[in-house]
């Protein structure tokens, strides 16, 4: 209850009790008097009523002032003292008591503050030691998490209730596409990135949001059966179609407790799209070639057998058979050529081209040429930062074959090599004294298979060059007519193009937020939300920025920011941050507060597109907001237009603050953040406020527990009792 209300209740009750006692004494006194004394007393009262009334009034007023003094000097400071001391000992050891009251209470506050200083220092020491002790274990966890994130396979771990405990980046990529699944208005994502049918992947969310329930259930049934029969292979395989029609092989493996009880499962996803396509092509080629060969062989065999069997056949008939055999032999040759070239081109498409520094490529060619061919190459460096994308084995072998031919053709065993960036290519020039190589000669080299001593690649130089989008020619050096060059050009790549280079894994300071193994024992079924402890629930903390403060008067949402809390941790990787086109003007007063300019909202999706997506984001969670009545009203006002109704349970940090700190006057976001030691980054941006609210909410949970508020139901009942719950928008 508000302290002022408490005071007036206290005054009213005290005065009433005093009046009742006085009145009772007066009645008793009156009844003892004989009639003549009663009439004498009445006449005295009538004569001196003014004095008696004034005396009574002064006594009561004095009593009131005394009570007010006692209340403000002793009682209110004492309750603040209790609240603020609890704050220091629970969530914010840096908080210090600043209250006005009696000298004894002020002294007590100073003593508590001094104690808090020592407590904080002690706690810091303890935390430091704990941090040190944790560091090693944490590092190992991070290595594991980072390793799993960098695996080419996607890894997803669920508990027995099919809720996600861990997912690697690859799973998100394979199933949901690129990182823009969660729209990021700052990066200018467009509404197309969250069209209908999209679902979210996230800790604590159901796996059924992202994979067909039937597939998972079938796999789990199969695993259960295998476990029952104690089979050696207890995994179950199925195929799912991921984002962009990726074909994913999923292997589900159970996680068992030491008692062999099923506690969860791991699904490993492998992208088999390319493999399947490759298999299909090879299969098709094989079938097609086999048919052609069989057909030709049939003609040849049948003709030869006829010739042998009928040696006296007419010469015209014999000639026919000879022609058939000749023709079919040529056909067979063509088929074999096709096999070779088709297979080569198919084989070649399997090569990954890897970025490499031009200098490193030349250095490799130089050292191998010297070692294998006894050819000396003098390097002339130019810009050593250029990169090209190559399959280094084939391109180096190709160049060695060319250098071998070059030596034979020019009778030189010394060449100068320089390389430099020219437009979109990097030119590699091998220079010698003498004439250039003729085009016809180069054409011959182009078609030769790459063979060098014991190394062989069943491909022509031309095929290798084509795959690299490279070209090669020879000409006279400009300005030095006695010299010629053989030039290889390879497309240059910009540094930022090297998207497929594996990044060095830098261990994060704290473990990645999508990594959490503490949820195995989580019960997690929606109908029981009300009775579940707050620290076991999943929350979606959100905030809206609006054109104004009057939802009924036509003010609209212009930004929605949100972040999830799972197992008492804020998941910074699972955010929702979206500007909304309000389809109306933006009042200058509101711009002053949130800083969102009208041009920032141009081209952004309208509320009917954003709310369905936000609803999906918040699915199966409890909504949390500061002053939630306002934000919920803003959402509700769009119900008719969007058809989206938020039926999630709601908690309000403003009300919860009033529950834990009834003696405090201020429950706005800044005051609350300061009290709980939370710093707000990006005040009055939807996401910034949502994150601050989330941090505040996490700190409120233990304070609520100290007051006996453990479950969602407890929190809601306690909220309803507070004064602020009467505010309506």
């Amino acid at each position, binding site marked *: 209850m508000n302290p002022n209300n408490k005071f007036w209740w206290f005054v009213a009750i005290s005065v009433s009790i005093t009046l009742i006692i006085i009145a009772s004494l007066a009645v008793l006194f009156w009844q003892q008097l004989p009639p003549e004394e009663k009439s004498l007393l009445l006449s005295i009262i009538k004569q001196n009523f003014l004095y008696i009334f004034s005396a009574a009034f002064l006594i009561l007023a004095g009593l009131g002032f005394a009570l007010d003094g006692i209340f403000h000097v002793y009682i209110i400071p004492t309750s603040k003292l209790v609240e603020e001391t609890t704050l220091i000992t629970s969530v914010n050891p840096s908080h210090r008591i600043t209250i006005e009251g009696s000298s004894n209470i002020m002294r007590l506050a100073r003593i508590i503050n001094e104690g808090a200083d020592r407590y904080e220092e002690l706690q810091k020491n303890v935390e430091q030691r704990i941090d040190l002790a944790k560091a090693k274990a944490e590092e190992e966890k991070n290595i594991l998490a980072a390793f799993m994130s960098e695996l080419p396979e996607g890894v997803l771990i669920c508990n027995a209730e099919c809720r996600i405990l861990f997912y690697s980046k690859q799973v998100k990529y394979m199933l949901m596409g690129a990182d823009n699944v969660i729209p990021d208005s700052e990066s200018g994502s467009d509404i197309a990135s969250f069209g209908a049918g999209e679902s979210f992947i996230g800790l604590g969310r159901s796996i059924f949001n992202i994979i067909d329930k039937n597939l998972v259930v079938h796999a789990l049934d199969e695993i259960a059966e295998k476990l029952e029969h104690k089979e050696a292979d207890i995994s179950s395989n199925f195929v799912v179609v991921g984002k962009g029609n990726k074909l994913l092989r999923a292997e589900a493996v159970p996680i068992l407790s030491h008692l062999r009880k099923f506690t969860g499962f791991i699904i490993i996803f492998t992208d088999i799209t390319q493999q399947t396509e490759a298999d299909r092509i090879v299969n098709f080629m094989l079938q097609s070639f*086999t*048919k*052609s060969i*069989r*057909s*030709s*062989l*049939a*003609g*040849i*065999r*049948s*003709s030869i*057998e*006829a010739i042998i*069997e*009928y040696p006296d*056949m007419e010469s015209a*008939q014999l000639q*026919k*058979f000879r022609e*058939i055999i000749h*023709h*079919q032999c040529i056909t067979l040759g063509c088929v074999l050529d096709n096999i070779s070239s088709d297979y080569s081109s198919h084989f070649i498409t399997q090569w990954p081209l890897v970025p490499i520094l031009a200098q490193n490529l030349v250095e490799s060619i130089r050292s191998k040429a010297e070692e294998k061919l006894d050819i000396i190459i003098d390097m002339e460096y130019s810009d050593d930062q250029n990169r090209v994308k190559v399959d280094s084995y084939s391109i180096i072998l190709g160049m060695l074959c060319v250098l071998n031919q070059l030596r034979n053709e020019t009778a030189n065993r010394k060449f100068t090599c320089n390389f430099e960036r020219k437009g979109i290519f990097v030119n590699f020039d091998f220079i010698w004294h003498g004439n250039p190589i003729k085009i016809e000669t180069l054409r011959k080299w182009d078609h030769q298979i790459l063979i060098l001593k014991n190394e062989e690649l069943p491909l022509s130089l031309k095929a290798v060059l084509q795959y690299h989008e490279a070209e090669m020619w020879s000409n006279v050096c400009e300005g030095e007519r006695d010299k010629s060059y053989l030039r290889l050009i390879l497309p240059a790549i910009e540094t930022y193009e090297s998207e497929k280079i594996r990044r060095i894994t830098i261990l994060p300071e704290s473990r990645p937020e999508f990594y959490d193994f503490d949820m195995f024992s989580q019960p997690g079924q929606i109908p029981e939300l009300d009775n579940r402890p707050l620290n076991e629930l999943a929350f979606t903390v959100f905030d809206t920025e609006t054109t104004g403060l009057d939802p009924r008067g036509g003010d609209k949402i212009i930004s929605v920011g949100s972040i999830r809390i799972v197992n008492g941790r804020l998941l910074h990787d699972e955010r929702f941050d979206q500007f909304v086109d309000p389809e109306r003007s933006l009042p200058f007063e509101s711009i002053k507060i949130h800083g969102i300019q009208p041009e920032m909202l141009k081209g952004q999706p309208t509320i009917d597109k954003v709310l369905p997506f936000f609803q999906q984001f918040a699915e199966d969670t409890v909504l949390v907001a500061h002053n939630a009545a306002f934000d919920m009203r803003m959402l509700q006002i769009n119900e008719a237009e969007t058809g989206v109704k938020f039926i999630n349970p709601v908690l309000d940090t403003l009300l919860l603050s009033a529950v834990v700190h009834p003696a405090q006057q201020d429950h706005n976001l800044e005051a609350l953040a300061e009290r709980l030691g939370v710093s707000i980054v990006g005040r009055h941006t939807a996401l910034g406020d949502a994150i601050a609210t989330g941090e505040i909410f996490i700190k409120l949970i233990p304070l609520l527990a100290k007051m006996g508020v453990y479950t969602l139901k407890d929190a809601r009942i306690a909220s309803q009792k507070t004064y602020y719950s009467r505010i309506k928008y």
Partner: protein
Amino acid sequence: MPQTILIVDDEQSIVVPLRFLMEQNGYKVITASSGEEAVDKISKFQPDLILLDIIHPGLDGFEICQIVREKPEWKDTRIIFVSTMVRDADVAKGLAFGADAYITKPFSNSQIMQQVKELLKG
């Protein structure tokens, strides 16, 4: 009256030796290089046996086989598939359509003659 054999194949390198072989063994030979031509010649000449390739222009071998087997008046016509399709599944399918035999390419002349004679001896 010699028995009539229809060879259905679009590859002359197959048709020529087969025709020679059959003629040397006393059979009358007619040929077709497409599905439609084959059906046309079957109804015109009512051959005793068809050497039927599967892949060729127009109706494929399976379809021709099906058409022949659906007509009661052609029920005595023997059919041998002669094909480059060699999977067990292809053989099973060919026989399921009512073919009397299935020979894969390349075949030996003696093998095919033996099969033809066996089917036509009745």
